[in-house]
């Protein structure tokens, strides 16, 4: 009994304190006739022939009513579903039939019951993709070229790498670390970019770091549970998973940009992404130099690493809420982090053990070249 009370006691006290605080309500002194704390954010936008559809989230302390909608400085009729005030963190869809103009900017303001406008700008209005039509195929193709194709192309370097001596292998492993190191930072940064756009209440900036570290730690511990550490094939799978999640995020970003019309995706840009991601293929097969991987394994790896880009594009075009994008990036960063550690451990075991050659020059050169390669190809992407 006494033991039970020791457990329950603190909880009861916590409840008591909460009740007492609400009862006394010292804050009421400051809230006298203060307008409600309203906050709205637009998480997703769909644009089609019938106008705009917005997914709106309330992230203020109080429930928010959308009283009126202004488009380009004009009151405009709209439909809200479900109707009524939006509870804290709740979402509604706002449909605004509007004769928008292709390729031009439009500005939308949602006015709450206090007349506070929450504004959103559509920089370049273009229709978001509609159903399983030709657009889906097109976006899927872009996804293939951005994710799957370059990974396969990168994997073609496997025979060349295999011919290398042990010293060159150290160089290749370090190169992979450099590539993945850049990818890790890039993925985290993109995750934080998504977090900027997400509802503040979700604390996505913090969550990106936490989820990345947690993912890395969990994957690492799972790897440790295996006998003899992690096998080369397993390592390749994990690298593919990390890169796959990264490509999912990349697909989301490209799809979102296409849907929002924020970038004009030229063929050049797609080719840039392709070149950039070839390095990912090299990274995946690097651990497999001592193996004789069959075609199914190689295509499996390529699929895991590359196909998520297609999925990402499809989802991104549909405009996914930014906090999901941030999560995908965080998980991807965590997976890459784990791979980085695993490769570092392999390098230590092979080249820095007792009586090992310690090819420091080759490893530093490899790591640096990996970073430089990624950076250089990223320049094409942002061009």
């Amino acid at each position, binding site marked *: 009994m006494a033991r039970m009370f020791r457990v329950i006691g603190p909880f009861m006290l916590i409840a008591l304190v909460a009740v007492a605080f609400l009862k006394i309500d010292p804050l009421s002194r400051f809230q006298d006739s203060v307008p409600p704390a309203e906050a709205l954010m637009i998480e997703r936008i769909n644009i089609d022939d019938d106008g705009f559809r917005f997914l709106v989230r309330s992230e203020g302390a109080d429930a928010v009513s959308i*009283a*009126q909608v*202004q488009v380009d400085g004009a009151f405009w009729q709209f439909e809200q579903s479900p109707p009524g005030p939006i509870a804290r963190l709740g979402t509604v869809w706002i449909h605004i*039939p509007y*004769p*928008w103009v292709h390729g031009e900017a439009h500005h939308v303001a949602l006015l709450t*019951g206090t007349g506070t*406008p929450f504004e959103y700008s559509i920089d370049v209005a273009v229709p978001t993709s509609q159903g399983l039509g030709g657009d889906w195929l097109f976006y899927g193709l872009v996804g293939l070229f951005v994710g799957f194709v370059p990974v396969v192309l990168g994997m073609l370097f496997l025979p060349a790498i295999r011919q290398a001596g042990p010293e060159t292998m150290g160089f290749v492993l370090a190169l992979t670390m450099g590539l993945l190191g850049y990818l890790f930072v890039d993925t985290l940064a993109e995750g934080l970019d998504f977090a900027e756009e997400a509802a503040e209440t979700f604390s996505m900036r913090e969550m990106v770091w936490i989820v990345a570290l947690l993912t890395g730690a969990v994957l690492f511990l799972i790897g440790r549970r295996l006998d003899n550490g992690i096998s080369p094939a397993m390592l390749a799978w994990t690298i593919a998973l990390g890169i796959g999640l990264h490509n999912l995020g990349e697909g989301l970003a490209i799809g979102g940009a296409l849907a929002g019309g924020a970038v004009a995706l030229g063929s050049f840009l797609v080719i840039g992404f392709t070149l950039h991601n070839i390095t990912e293929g090299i990274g995946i097969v690097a651990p497999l130099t001592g193996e004789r991987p069959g075609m199914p394994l190689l295509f499996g790896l390529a699929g895991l690493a590359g196909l998520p880009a297609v999925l990402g594009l499809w989802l991104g075009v549909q405009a996914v809420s930014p906090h999901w994008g941030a999560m995908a990036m965080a998980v991807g960063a965590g997976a890459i982090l784990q791979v980085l550690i695993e490769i570092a451990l392999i390098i230590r075991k092979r080249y820095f053990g007792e009586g090992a050659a310690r090819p420091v020059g080759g490893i530093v050169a490899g790591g640096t070249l990996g970073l430089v390669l990624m950076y250089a190809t990223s320049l094409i992407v942002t061009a």
Partner: protein
Amino acid sequence: MNFSRLSRRNLLGTGFLGSLLGLTATHASTALAASETQSGAMHHDKHAMGAMMTVGEVDNARNGFDPHAMLTDWERGTTSVGADGRVTREFEVTAEDKEIEIAPGIFFPAWTYNGRVPGPTLRATEGERLRIIFRNHGSMPHTMHFHGIHGASMDGVSGAGEISPGEEFVYEFDARPFGCHLYHCHSIPLKRHLHKGLYGAFIIDPDPERHPEAVDSARSRLLGTPENAHWQELLMVMNGFDTNFDEENEVYAVNTVAHAYSKKPIVIERDRPIRIYLVNITEFDPINSFHIHGNFFDYYDHGTTLEPTSRIIDTVMLCQAQRGIIEMSFKDFEPGLYMFHAHQAEFVELGWMSHFEVRA
């Protein structure tokens, strides 16, 4: 004009035909359909375009005032006749804080005269002695500053008629000059006291005996005469509301409620002339304006003359506190809806859009 999905799709991407379709749709639309724009090759049928309009209805009962009633709601006060035969007219006005619904679902923390925005339309006759008993039940010091002829001590500014909450002041002066005037609070900060809602119309009808050269005109302006009863007189105060206090208006209207006369047009008897007492009190924007569709009007700037100051115009521009009288007629016109609105498209789209429904 409602096109089937199929026919619309057929026309999509055919720029020329698409434009033709757009033109036809615009042409055939009635006056009720709010401004439609061409959008290049991207064509939408009228249904898909939606409408430039607020959604829902304002609860007039909760507001305590009805924009349609305000059009003709003249506050006459009480009169007494002195030994010299001179009429003294007394008004009672109370300043109070009140939340008002200015567009469906949008509530504005207003400062009001007699619980309404615009305040009561005080209407007197030239030459009368006016006594305005002003009480402040609000939370800030306020005044009533009349646009009229009066002494310095009756000016309704700081030190001359400004009263704190709970106090009372009596403004006293002669009703002159005749015309369409206004009153407003002149406490500082001035912009805030104005746009929060402290303003109203102040109309002085001409005394026909003082204007032998234009007795007929004067009699038609004097409320209570048979000649005046023939006219359809309307009060319109052009105002705006800055709901987020960023010194820009989110809502524009005539008599406060956005789109009130668009959703429910003002019914006009075709064969009786119309006289509009028009006041601009819009804050933050340099000017406002009035434009009538399908007709022209005569305009009396400030209403202080019995001859029009502008003849046969269809648009008039007013700065803040400028006002005037519009006289027009729809006699022998085709019955139907006739738009009137500010000719600043910005104001139109944010609520200052209205209709006359002219009936035979």
